[in-house]
């Protein structure tokens, strides 16, 4: 049951709900949109055998990088890990299982779970190595690959603004995978630079309606981030 007024909580309490072995979607494309404060707390709390779903592996010392380095990630579902030499090394050594999807298909597989479907039918990647191993089906005289949706137990997302009901506003290219993941996970934990009272965000400015968000945590804007001025409405 939704409890609109019981979502605003602490970093510690929000992350403590995550058990070992959880599947976790993590927003972000590069650093923008990566929920670094939530991930740092996850590192501190010690959950292990995690499956992470994230566009990329960040860099070795940012975002999910330290979790990978600490051996806490069993499996990573992603589109590209080229900026994280530690992740590549862990993959090559067989300590990290990496599942690669083309970026737009990864986004759609997540969005598809968020829309409540089983999967979708695509022609992307037919006849290529990365498209192998998919079940195919003929419709209207052409062949299509079935792409099952990807869901997760948790999503960790980064927003610019939130309200205490869990409405979220993203900023700039920090949007990326965040709103899709907020739809696709069973429990959604959001960090935001400001958490306002309901009514402070204009209804039309909200990217992720509060119905999708389980918990909201206010984080301090990094002092050295010139871009971090929240845009009130």
């Amino acid at each position: 049951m939704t409890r609109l007024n019981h979502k605003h909580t602490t970093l510690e309490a929000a992350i403590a709900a995550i058990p070992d072995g959880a599947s976790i979607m993590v927003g972000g494309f590069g650093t923008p949109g990566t929920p670094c404060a939530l991930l740092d707390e996850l590192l501190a709390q010690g959950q292990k055998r995690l499956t992470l779903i994230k566009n990329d592996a960040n860099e070795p010392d940012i975002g999910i990088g330290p979790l990978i380095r600490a051996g806490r990630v069993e499996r990573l579902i992603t589109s590209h890990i080229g900026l994280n030499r530690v992740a590549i090394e862990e993959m090559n050594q067989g300590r990290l299982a990496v599942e690669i999807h083309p970026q737009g298909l990864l986004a759609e597989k997540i969005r598809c779970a968020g829309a409540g479907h089983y999967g979708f039918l695509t022609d992307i990647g037919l006849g290529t190595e990365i498209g192998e191993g998919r079940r195919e089906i003929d419709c209207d005289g052409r062949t299509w690959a079935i792409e099952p949706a990807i869901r997760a137990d948790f999503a960790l997302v980064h927003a610019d603004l939130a309200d205490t009901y869990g409405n979220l506003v993203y900023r700039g290219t920090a949007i990326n995978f965040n709103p899709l993941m907020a739809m696709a996970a069973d429990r959604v934990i959001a960090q935001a630079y400001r958490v306002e009272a309901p009514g402070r965000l204009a209804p039309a400015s909200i990217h992720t309606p509060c119905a999708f968000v389980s918990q909201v945590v206010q984080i301090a804007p990094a002092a050295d981030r010139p871009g971090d001025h929240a845009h009130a409405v």
Partner: protein
Amino acid sequence: MPSDQQHILARAAKEVAAGQIVNLGIGLPTRLFHYLPPDMEVLVHSENGVLGCQPLEGDAEPDLEMIDSGGAYIGTRPGASVFDSALSFAMIRRSRVDVTFMGAFEVDQQGNLANWKIPGKFSPGIGGAMELAQKVRRLVVLCSHNDKHGNAKILRQCRLPLTARHCISTIITEKAVMNVTEAGLEVVDIAEGLDVASLRAATEAELIIDEHRLGRF
């Protein structure tokens, strides 16, 4: 409004808890809003693309681009958001709506619902009812206990085309409040002044009634 409908709505309001997300179907359910405590923190979802709508205050000038799915002009309350139809139904299919109130032509003791089509007589389309009924966490049906000819609407088995199967949690009529359970249709409350024999006579479905636990409303 007929007193039977007021009776249904007053009872239905008790099915809403503070902090919930609620969808109100077209017709009678829409009016449920006025039976909720004004300070209750509830967000009403309307499937045309708004969460947190509320009826317009008496003489407020309407914004012609703000309506609910029944076509009424609406306002919003703090915490509201607007969004496109795909997101609106993603919210529904992901079961992010706690409770939906809907009308019905027929319901049955398996919790089946028929409220969109009467073959040969009424078939304007299904709108958003199917997905709401199939995916909402709790579906509460608000309807008259019998049709205008006195025929039963609470049946053993629906005869009209179904909106969704096994979807109903609770049925509220002017005569009774019934929960759909594994065992069948269990009467929770019976209307003040109505006896059990009269209720059974007005109902085709088998009713499970424990007179010691029966409430009045």
